[in-house]
């Protein structure tokens, strides 16, 4: 688990490093997705025996790819504009709220006490963000 923690922290930090070093976002993302595709391709080739791709999987995969790339571009742009890595990273991790809200609204899942507390803290976080932290040197 410690490797996972360090890896996730390193990936988030690499986004900020790419913006501080003024990397071309498209080239940086190209490198990221190329290695991701190679790794996922190797896993696919070694573990999957059913090569049938239903249309729904194509649609979901292609749509998710486009949405995920757009999300990363927005995140990189936010960091490029001088956004705080600590806060921007937390905001993006808050994306956990979306499938929870979707599941409660459309899949009929129950809103547990933990979820209510988590969402309430999210609202508090939004209120605290409304008067954002002191701008960093890059922003000023």
């Amino acid at each position, binding site marked *: 688990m410690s490797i996972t923690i360090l890896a996730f922290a390193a990936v988030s930090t690499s986004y900020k490093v*790419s913006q501080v070093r003024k990397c071309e976002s498209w080239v940086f993302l190209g490198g990221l997705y190329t290695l991701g595709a190679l790794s996922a391709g190797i896993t696919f080739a070694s573990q999957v025996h059913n090569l049938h791709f239903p249309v729904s999987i194509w649609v979901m995969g292609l749509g998710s790819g486009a949405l995920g790339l757009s999300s990363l571009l927005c995140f990189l742009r936010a960091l490029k504009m001088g956004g705080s890595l600590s806060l921007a990273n937390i905001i993006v991790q808050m994306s*956990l709220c979306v499938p929870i809200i979707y599941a409660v609204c459309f899949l009929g899942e129950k809103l547990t006490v933990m979820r209510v507390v988590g969402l309430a803290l999210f609202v508090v976080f939004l209120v605290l963000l409304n008067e954002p*932290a002191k701008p960093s040197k890059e922003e000023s």
Partner: protein
Amino acid sequence: MSRWIGLAFLAMLLNGVVLAIQKCLPAQYTNHFLPLIYVVGGIVSWGAAVALKRPIRLAHFGLGAAAGLVSYVGNYCLIRSLAPPSKASVVFPIVFGTSMLIVALVSVVGFKERLTPRGICAVIVGIASVVILSQS
């Protein structure tokens, strides 16, 4: 509200929709789904880099490739750490919470980001919120 916060929230919403789509994904197609995501991202990224005539520097590609490799290793180890007898409700909060804490520390120490007391409260409340949501 700063413009970068708006963009970060847009990133959150877009990423959230991807997570919602994954929630609807039949389990037997997980390994079909991931390569498609990466291939689409790769094609669009390289297509845009070429179409917009961006200079392709090895250092920029290398940093992205390293991030991609580390991301894969992280996800692979996450899947292994979720194997029984571990529980997702324990693993996810620890992984999300600790990695965000490390990123916050790196931001302050490494990138010299200055946070007001209100900003520090936002970091603490935000991490707590993600930890609780990932547990549920």
